């Protein structure tokens, strides 16, 4: 890396760590190093926009420590627009988007944090202004530009779209009552604009910095032809990060298997590491590598901190996994929502009553046996 104070050894170490991050073989380290070096010279431009988001995924991204976020934002990527990170504001900031879209068409990566509201013309989420807008009196006034319009403008020229976080990927919390604002996941918006545009979903609320960094690098290497297409599951998530069930690798799996369940939050034995399934843990239905990757530089993760998994990496989060502190939701049957066990026991009771009643009916209604049938004695 000429012109920078990074030794070859440091650079290869960085490439090796990135390879591990992506879950690739060590044999790919030289190829990845070369790809990163080429990316370095080209600095792939990134436009990061925010929809119905809380900026939590941006904050989580700032916790990225390897690669360091500063290096990632400034060196490996060229983040042209990020509403939280960038110094510029107002028209200057908006110009950065427009310039990037115009000058680097087909080369930039579009990162969208938060889903896109579509009702009321998308006015629930706007940034920047649309030009030549007139009010009722005929005066030319600036009009807020909905993110939906930005998507129509930016998606066609993007090399790939990254939906950052569960909300952007699947609707998440804003999507739990999607009817109010017409919350739409990013992939659905992109599909309407350009069905062939590659989209990678990064689940999580917030998403893990490694998941995001890994997804961006995977997409960039694919675009540059340095590796095959990203290995995605049916929800367009990288299998590297979302291929294993949390339950399988959970540090409290032994408690689940042994039937040792936490049943009261006031239980004074946190060191027992009791399974939190009965307290609403969604680990049995959530695909993510949290137990092994952990958060905050590998410090801990939700279950390790005595909090049940909320299933935030799943498409069913939040609506179908709520209430978060209740066991897995029940089956809806003709508008009722009894627990499966209750339903089962009621059906078993009905079966027993039915069988018993039939038996009694047959017994009571049975004709006395004739002497010829009873035997010869």
């Amino acid at each position, binding site marked *: 890396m000429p012109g920078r104070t990074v030794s070859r050894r440091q650079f290869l170490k960085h490439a090796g760590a990135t390879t591990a991050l992506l879950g690739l073989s060590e044999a790919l380290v030289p190829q990845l190093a070369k790809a990163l070096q080429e990316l370095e010279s080209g600095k792939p431009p990134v436009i990061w926009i925010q929809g119905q988001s809380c900026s939590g995924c941006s904050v989580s991204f700032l916790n990225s420590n390897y690669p360091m976020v500063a290096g990632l934002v400034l060196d490996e990527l060229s983040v042209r627009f990020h509403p939280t990170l960038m110094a510029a504001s107002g028209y200057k900031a908006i110009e950065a988007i427009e310039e990037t879209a115009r000058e680097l068409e087909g080369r930039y990566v579009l990162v969208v944090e938060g889903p896109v509201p579509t009702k009321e013309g998308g006015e629930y989420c706007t940034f920047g202004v649309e030009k030549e807008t007139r009010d009722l009196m005929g005066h030319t006034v600036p009009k807020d530009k909905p993110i939906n319009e930005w998507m129509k403008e930016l998606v066609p020229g993007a090399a790939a779209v990254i939906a950052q976080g569960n909300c952007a990927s699947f609707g998440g919390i804003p999507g739990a009552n999607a009817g109010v604002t017409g919350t739409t996941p990013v992939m659905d918006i992109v599909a309407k604009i350009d069905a062939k545009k590659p989209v990678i979903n990064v689940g999580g609320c917030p998403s893990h910095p490694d998941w995001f960094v890994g997804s961006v690098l995977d997409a960039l290497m694919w675009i540059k032809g340095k590796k095959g297409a990203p290995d995605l*599951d*049916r929800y367009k998530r990288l299998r590297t990060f979302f*291929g294993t069930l949390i339950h399988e690798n959970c540090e409290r799996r*032994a408690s*689940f*298997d*042994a*039937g040792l*369940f936490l049943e009261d939050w006031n239980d004074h034995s946190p060191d027992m590491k009791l399974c939190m*399934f*009965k307290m609403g843990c*969604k680990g*049995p*239905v959530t*695909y993510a590598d949290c137990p092994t990757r952990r958060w905050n530089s590998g410090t801990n993760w939700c279950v390790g901190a005595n909090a049940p998994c909320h299933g935030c990496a*799943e*498409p*069913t989060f939040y609506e*179908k*996994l709520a209430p978060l502190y209740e066991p*897995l*939701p*029940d*089956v809806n049957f003709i508008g009722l929502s009894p627990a*499966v*066990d209750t*339903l*089962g026991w009621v*059906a*078993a009771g009905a*079966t027993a009553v*039915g*069988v018993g009643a*039939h*038996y009694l009916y*047959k*017994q009571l209604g*049975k004709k006395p046996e004739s002497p010829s*049938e009873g*035997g010869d004695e």
Partner: protein
Amino acid sequence: MKDRINVPGPARVMYRTYLAVLALVLYTGFDTFHPFLSGWRYPWSMSLAGVFNFYLCWILVLVAFVYLYYAILGRPKGWNEPLGIFRIFIGLLTIWFFLLTFAAYRPNGWLNGLVHVLGGPVGTFKLYELFLWVMLLVNVIYIYARWVKSERFPRLTSAGRTKKVV
């Protein structure tokens, strides 16, 4: 007197195999998905129950397929056992139960389309639990109904045997 019921040997063997495997599948299924109820519960036993449950289902579905073939296409002469339609229904239900089991255990497998239709892994998981009950109760009802249709009902032993004992 009821007519003598003739059940061919292969059908008898298949049903006995089916019942034995079903009992294990239901036990391990409830044990795996309801570990909070009670009972046999150690780390090794739970994982063993999961493995048993998943792989025994294959035996169940194979028996169901063979039975359906035997009862529909390759039906032997002289088989006058009542409730044939009920057994075919149970065979079809078993195939569905197998698909549901597979989808619950391998939500990202080749049945991920079914998982999607059923509302994702959570819906599949809960429906599987529900169908554990359905399989149990349908088979209990069948056993009772078959007993009602048998020569021995309402006794547990046939009149002929009783006569001999007496």
